[in-house]
């Protein structure tokens, strides 16, 4: 089934930036520090470069099947049976991601600003917004996702207030490379988590105009570049502000730093940051749930809107169960999941396509 709507390369830029920027942003400096010490920013840069390559591979895979999403071309590549299985596990994976975002978002809000509010209220808000944002055509979703880009820039500007602090010490970044090349490389697998979101390209590439020209890639490359630079900036900022031992015991360094900043009329910048960040998390949720609903509607042949409600309900129930049962399974597996679904499976698909010369047109002739 070919998709009919078309989006431009610029649209894809916004969609991808919004999908990639998400819950990982706040905890990132803590995680990279855990893995690579003060060289966390190098590890982010390397990961960013690495993601560019992966994105290129995903593009190479997708142009073989113009205007088909992952959920369609998986059947072409692997056959009907295996393809359906792959679609199913991709749907499960995407739903898991939404659950993870739900839980982290609720958890951070609960710890930072709403300690008394029951968690189900937060989940319900997320649920309603998920449905509100995803019941639409891709065109509507893109306009919904493009505007909040402004809030990412806001986040960026809010961090400027930090520079007035006298305890900033650039020496925390030195000695560069102290953790050793191998450790930095190893830590790239940890710093991949904030980049998760690029795998939705497997779906979005189907919508792009003239996907075969290199200009289709432009938006994607810029998006990955933008996210890499932003994350590197956040990591460097936190490393410079907090001493190494301190980052180790501060799970959300960015918020912690901002909570101490005071400008004339506001004494808690972290609250402003959190509210902007909330919008950015929602765009991630919407983008994911839009993709997953597309998969569900194709898998069991129901309407998109119904699929949205179905996936939303599923996510709501699962995340409430996970939250109250205190299951932290997701966090542990996240790294491996994203590695499998974002990198390994697309590469395998690409290899199969090349070796067995699968093409979109040939299968359609057969049908």
């Amino acid at each position, binding site marked *: 089934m070919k998709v009919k709507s078309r989006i431009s390369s610029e649209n894809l830029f916004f969609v991808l930036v919004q999908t990639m920027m998400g819950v990982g942003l706040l905890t990132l400096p803590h995680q990279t520090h855990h893995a690579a010490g003060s060289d966390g920013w190098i590890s982010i840069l390397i990961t960013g470069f690495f993601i560019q390559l992966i994105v290129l591979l995903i593009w190479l895979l997708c142009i073989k099947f113009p205007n088909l999403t992952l959920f369609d071309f998986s059947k072409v590549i692997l056959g009907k049976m295996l393809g359906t299985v792959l679609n199913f596990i991709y749907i499960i994976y995407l739903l898991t991601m939404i659950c993870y975002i739900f839980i982290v978002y609720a958890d951070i809000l609960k710890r930072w600003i709403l300690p008394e509010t029951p968690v189900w209220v937060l989940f319900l808000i997320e649920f309603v917004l998920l449905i509100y944002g995803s019941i639409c055509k891709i065109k509507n979703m893109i306009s919904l996702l493009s505007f909040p880009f402004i809030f990412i820039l806001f986040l960026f500007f809010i961090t400027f207030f930090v520079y007035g602090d006298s305890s900033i010490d650039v020496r925390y970044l030195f000695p560069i490379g102290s953790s050793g090349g191998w450790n930095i490389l190893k830590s790239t697998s940890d710093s991949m988590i904030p980049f998760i979101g690029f795998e939705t390209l497997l779906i979005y590439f189907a919508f792009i105009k003239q996907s075969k020209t290199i200009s289709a890639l432009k938006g994607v490359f810029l998006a990955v570049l933008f996210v890499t630079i932003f994350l590197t900036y956040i990591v460097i900022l936190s490393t410079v502000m*907090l001493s190494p031992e301190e980052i180790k015991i501060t799970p959300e360094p960015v918020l912690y730093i901002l909570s101490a900043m005071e400008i004339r009329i506001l004494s808690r910048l972290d609250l402003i940051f959190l509210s902007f960040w909330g919008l950015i998390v929602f765009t991630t949720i919407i983008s994911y749930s839009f993709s997953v609903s597309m998969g569900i509607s194709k898998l069991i042949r129901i309407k998109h809107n119904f699929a949205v409600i179905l996936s939303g309900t599923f996510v709501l129930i699962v995340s409430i169960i996970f939250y109250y049962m205190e299951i932290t399974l997701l966090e542990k597996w996240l790294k491996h999941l994203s590695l499998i679904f974002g990198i390994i499976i697309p590469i395998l698909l690409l290899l199969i396509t090349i070796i067995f010369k699968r093409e979109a047109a040939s299968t359609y002739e057969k049908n």
Partner: protein
Amino acid sequence: MRKTEIFLIFFILPLLAGCWDERLLKSSRTVYLSGFDLNENGDYQITSIIRDMNISESSRGEISISNELVTGKGSSIKEASMTIDRSVPGNYDPAKGRALILGIDVAKGDIYNVLDAVYRDPRVDLNAKIAVTDNSANEIITHLSENEVEKGEYLYELIHSSEMHSKLQEITLRSIRTYLFDEGKDFMLPYLSKDEENNEVKINGAALFHDHSFTGQFLSPDESTLLLLFMETQSKKAILTEKLDKKADESVSYNVKSVSRKLKLEKEEKVHADIMLQLEVEIVDYPPNHLDKQEMINFLENRLSEILTEKADALFKKLAANQSDVLGLGRELIAFHPSIWKEIKGANYYEHILVNPKVKVNVRSSGIIL
């Protein structure tokens, strides 16, 4: 379609009100100033000033402010604050405190014991100032509650203005944590004492810390300004006064405009730190003479350089005696000389460092007259 969207929006509205987390001003007892003490049997004592707003019904809603002094004891800070909570009507809410005072016994121990509870609370104002007293915090706060109207604000402003004049290192509740967890850096906090003669609380200088605890020594305001200059973290104003000649009673005041520091670390028997400090100063007060001749300027520059080098020598001897690495030489070693650091690292690394300061003063301006 439109209908579902409108329905969703209306559905979400009651949830967004956030009534669960409302905290009414009338039911919470806001703390403006707290102090921590440690008594002989290892119990912590918190002394706080709570500000109350009374809206009187009789005189047309006129607001009157009253202050209440409360104390509580407990084996941990949280327990002590729960004791206070039980003794006051309403919720004891330490989040708004603008200043914290550490009694001398607390400061001499590990001060992180006291601060830990503060960092775990997301609502605490991390911009609060911290000070050390030469006595118990209780005494200072009792004094403040009797004599000053603004209490917490008073202390905050007192410390803040000293920081503005480069008499103290700029430290807030947030940045102190950075120093506490930094193996290669120490810090200094305002050192308060009660002046019996004038019956007021004043800042005596800067209390030197080593690792997590107060060394017992403090720097005079002038010494701490000089140290801040060596750290290149002085504020916009850093006015110093030197006596040029002991007998003639000639003195000069100058404001340091800018600083440039050259630091060289070399490992010999000990780690030698040669620090060359260049100060660009503006003469703000020099009644005995005028700066219309080049010789006069040269004389002043040489004399000031000499005096400051001497003072810096004494200052670094004092720091070495207390092993207080406020300058952050340890961090410098970690960052740029990791091999040297590996040899000397440990709790008392400052023993291995020998500082050799040198100051050069350049007179750049003299106000609107010569």
